[in-house]
């Protein structure tokens, strides 16, 4: 009960690492990024390829711990580990790196990573609301644009930016349409397939090809819906997964949820829906429009971060959710602290079962997580 095209989506991993090599050898510039705050459109406008860099696997963490503290979030350690061991093809082919001052752990790690490759760090305001913050962020956007113009020795025109925005929006819209297919009850796609498709878009070297593949996947999935095909039943508990980003190698909790009989219907995190919710305004002056879109990202490094609660409440309703799971990485202060507010909001305002699961990339706590997840699903089903 799985769309046949998912196989092709999975193969993107291999395909893209070959494509990035070919593109780089043909003289194309590559901009490596780590975060949903990174304005890919500016890189695209410079005729460069923006890619998300590796950071979702446990393997390189030991190497990272030679320099970084052990009690740091696994995402930061993995990202640095991949860079320092040179085991990420996208990192290898990146000409420049783009990073932002999001959480403390990341911004200090970037100082070390900057020793490996040329890196531009954008100074992200800590408050997402307010005209003065937007203005400041726009000057940071312009600084990044100048950095690319200098690095790649080419002028970025408004026309370049507008074309990039159009393409970026098209990709965003198609990923959003795909995510919204799981509003149907029972959901046609497993949470794991949805996560994989959403996560892999970050590595798409050929944007057009990526968009077409997802369009075809949507068509196939719509046919499945018409025929009433789904891996689940109407009784399957529907879960909204929020919190930290996940990808191949860090999908443990999503996997346990679905192995235990849940259907993860919505992924609020930044590898999922978070970056897709809002498009870039194509009518506005391009740099301003880009700044507005990216600053509106409801990330836990912002204070306050009320728009995350707003997004959660919309998703919970639109996706007919039965419970919310907040996944947080160990030593990720922003998400771990915010979990208290998210839990309170979900339980008291949305009146829904909520659970926080704090873990890392290792498999050592699978047993403990399974107990919590199974108990949570028993709570939702309320059979006993």
């Amino acid at each position, binding site marked *: 009960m799985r769309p046949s095209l998912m196989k092709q989506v999975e193969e993107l991993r291999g395909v893209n690492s070959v494509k990035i090599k070919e593109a780089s050898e043909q003289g194309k510039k590559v901009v490596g990024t780590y975060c949903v705050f990174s304005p890919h459109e500016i890189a695209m406008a410079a005729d460069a390829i923006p890619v998300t860099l590796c950071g979702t696997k446990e393997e390189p963490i030991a190497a990272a711990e030679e320099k970084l503290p052990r009690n740091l979030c696994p995402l930061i350690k993995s990202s640095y580990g991949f860079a320092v061991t040179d085991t990420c093809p996208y990192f290898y082919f990146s000409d420049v790196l783009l990073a932002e001052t999001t959480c403390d752990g990341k911004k200090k790690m970037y100082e070390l990573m900057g020793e490996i490759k040329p890196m531009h760090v954008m100074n992200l305001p800590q408050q997402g609301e307010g005209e003065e913050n937007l203005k400041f962020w726009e000057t940071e956007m312009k600084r990044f644009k100048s950095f690319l113009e200098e690095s790649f020795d080419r002028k970025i025109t408004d026309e370049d930016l507008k074309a990039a925005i159009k393409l970026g929006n098209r990709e965003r819209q198609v990923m959003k349409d795909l995510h919204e297919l799981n509003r149907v009850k029972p959901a046609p796609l497993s949470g794991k397939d949805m996560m994989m498709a959403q996560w892999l878009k970050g590595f798409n070297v050929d944007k057009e090809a990526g968009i077409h593949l997802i369009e075809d996947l949507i068509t196939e999935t719509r046919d499945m819906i018409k025929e009433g095909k789904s891996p689940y039943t109407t009784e399957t508990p529907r879960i909204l997964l929020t919190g930290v980003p996940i990808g191949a190698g860090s999908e443990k909790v999503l996997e346990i949820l679905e192995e235990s009989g849940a259907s993860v219907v919505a992924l609020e995190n930044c590898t999922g829906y978070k970056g897709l919710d809002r498009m870039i305004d194509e009518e506005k002056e391009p740099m301003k429009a880009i700044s507005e879109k990216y600053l509106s990202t409801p990330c836990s490094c912002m204070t306050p971060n009320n728009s995350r609660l707003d997004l959660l409440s919309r998703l919970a309703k639109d996706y007919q959710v039965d419970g919310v799971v907040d996944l947080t990485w160990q030593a990720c202060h922003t998400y771990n602290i915010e979990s208290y507010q998210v839990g309170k909001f979900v339980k008291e305002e949305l009146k829904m079962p*909520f659970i926080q699961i704090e873990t890392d990339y290792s498999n*050592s706590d699978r047993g403990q997580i399974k107990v919590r997840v199974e*108990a949570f699903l*028993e*709570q939702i089903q*309320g059979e*006993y």
Partner: protein
Amino acid sequence: MQTLSMGIDIGSVATKGVLLNQDHEILDKVLLPTGWSPKKTGEAVYRLILEKKRLMADSTLDPRSSMNPRVVVTGYGRVVTDFATKAVTEITCHGKGAQILHPKTRTVIDIGGQDSKVIHLSEKGKVLDFLMNDKCAAGTGRFMEVMSTSLGVEVGELSALAEGYKARKINNMCTVFAESEVISLLAEGAAKGEIARGIINSTAQKAAVMLKRMGIQEEVFLTGGVSQSPLFRKALEEELNISVYFRQEAQFVGALGAAAIGLDIKG
């Protein structure tokens, strides 16, 4: 013939078995140390109850056999048995068991061998919310066990050893560090009883923080192996400033809940 149901709670330290009839009367209860094989011990408890009650239809362990009762298994060993009608988590089972023994329970605090949990219950005994300790021995029976060993006593003797002494504060929550702390205290000449009291208080403090994080809704029912220590109960009540409900059978609450769930299974 009346419907019988057995609940088996395979914990990290002890495996508990309870046999119930339809009226929720406990016909038998058994406790064995889990040891190294949760599967074998679970099976041993199962057979022991069957044999004692002469319920064995034949020598097989088939729960579908007409004479045998239904069996619901819980605890960390719930996934390893092959004779269970159903496996249910210890959270749901503790909720159910606490509701049967003491219907006024709205909060269960269970301190077991390797984990501790707080559960909020509705009036009907449904789980509303729960919290479990992280993957660490702090605030669990394991913490008390390791500390007892460094004092040269069994964990069951800790309460008696501490009786009549004032506590020496144990500052470390981490079991490994707390062990060195105990050794240093011994070297300084502290009485074993003072340290024992400190260990009990430290565990109670950790449990109280977990309870407060969830929010205390009275009445609070203390379950799990650690509940057997009268000084622990006292320390917990002092930390919370409320009285905490306790029963001699408190260690069997999970198994009891599992057995009761077995009665609800249709067919």
